[in-house]
């Protein structure tokens, strides 16, 4: 095949690629340091293995958590602003119907999920990416409520106060980690999606 016959399709804009990887790093730091903070006073009758945590001890974990939160939030603001203003969200994540999501999840479980055109997200992908964005929004607001239960007491009150915000923060983390794990498994199953998140381009045979 001649190289000229290979068509490159641009599928991930530069802003999305940069914010994706910054977000991945921020989430890794937030989750692993957050687990260490959780271990200092577990909400539920279990602890995370210290080997999987960041910070070495509570003070170190808090330093990481409250440093990376700026990275997470600033990066998130850039991504969400871009997503709304450029129409990226509208064109890539919508329309989204529960029926289409259920159908795609069923297909995926049968190992038959259509993934031919990498420039179009299937309904299961749309739901997963939207859910991660929503989880992160909930994580940021419940995090603000835990960090500042007096200054941001209105946010805390929505979640049933300080202790309620802790539970919301934990549940949003658990759901997000679950979706991220599925996301990583899907990338392993469809590895050609990985380089596109660096180059932004996918090969499409003419």
């Amino acid at each position: 095949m001649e190289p000229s016959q290979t068509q490159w399709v641009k599928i991930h804009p530069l802003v999305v690629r940069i914010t994706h990887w910054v977000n991945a790093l921020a989430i890794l730091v937030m989750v692993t340091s957050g687990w260490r903070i959780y271990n200092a006073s577990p909400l539920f009758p279990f602890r995370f293995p210290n080997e999987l945590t960041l910070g070495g001890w509570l003070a170190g974990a808090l330093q990481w958590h409250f440093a990376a939160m700026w990275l997470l939030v600033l990066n998130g603001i850039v991504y969400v602003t871009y997503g709304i203003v450029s129409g990226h969200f509208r064109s890539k994540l919508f329309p989204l119907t529960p029926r289409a999501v259920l159908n795609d999840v069923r297909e995926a479980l049968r190992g038959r999920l259509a993934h031919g055109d990498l420039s179009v997200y299937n309904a299961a992908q749309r739901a997963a990416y939207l859910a991660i964005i929503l989880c992160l929004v909930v994580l940021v607001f419940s995090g603000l409520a835990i960090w500042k239960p007096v200054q941001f007491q209105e946010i805390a009150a929505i979640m049933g106060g300080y202790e309620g915000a802790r539970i919301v923060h934990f549940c949003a983390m658990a759901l997000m980690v679950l979706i991220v794990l599925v996301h990583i498994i899907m990338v392993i199953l469809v590895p050609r999606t990985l380089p596109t998140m660096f180059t932004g381009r996918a090969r499409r045979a003419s």
Partner: protein
Amino acid sequence: MKKRTMETSLAEHSPKLVRSIERRLFLRQGLSVGALAMLSGCNLTDDESVQKVLEGMSRWNDRAQGWLFSQTKLAPEFPESAITKPFPFNAFYTEAEVTVVDGKSYQLELAGLVRDQKPWTLPELYALPQTSQITRHICVEGWSAIGKWSGVRFSDFLARIGADTTAKYVGFECADDYTTSIDMATALHPQTLLTFRFADQILPPKYGFPMKLRIPTKLGFKNPKHITAIEVTNEYPGGYWEDQGYNWFSGS
């Protein structure tokens, strides 16, 4: 034509194996990179340059929290029925090692930018106008508990001793060798109390006899117990936990 067919057939057959090997490699590499990042987690924090960045961010967070802090925003108060029983004991030592201060010989020392540095005895402190609050104590570890504290408004006390309230910090020294310090804005907050009672009883030793500075707008470790000396200063005093890496402002 023939060549093309062979290529196609090769492309059809070999990728299965290649792809599965690639996948396995990718998996293993992915896992080992993750494991490395995790394993080095504790050591990463000890790295000098990393530590510098983290401490710099902590100082930045001190400033951000100073801006977020409102002198008029009050911590939520609760009814008596919400009080946590028993209220947890917490310190950098065990409950059996609690310092017992002799109330009769006790004196509160004042230092720094304070006009009237005469030490205070307990009867003198008890004679000051008292107020109560039922607020949530939040520990840096994450747990919280609601308690009732009574004492004198710290801003009233600072005014009485002629403290320079334009100074930056108020530092505390305690009978159990604990130290901490707070910003002046928080010291002057209406809910910051110099307390002598817990649950309407004279503070028991485990909760900080003879006095605890109750600050519902700060984490528990910023609420010193067994206070023996108060200093008003413009030089950063640090503190027991703060010097070990806990965030200095630690405001709620």
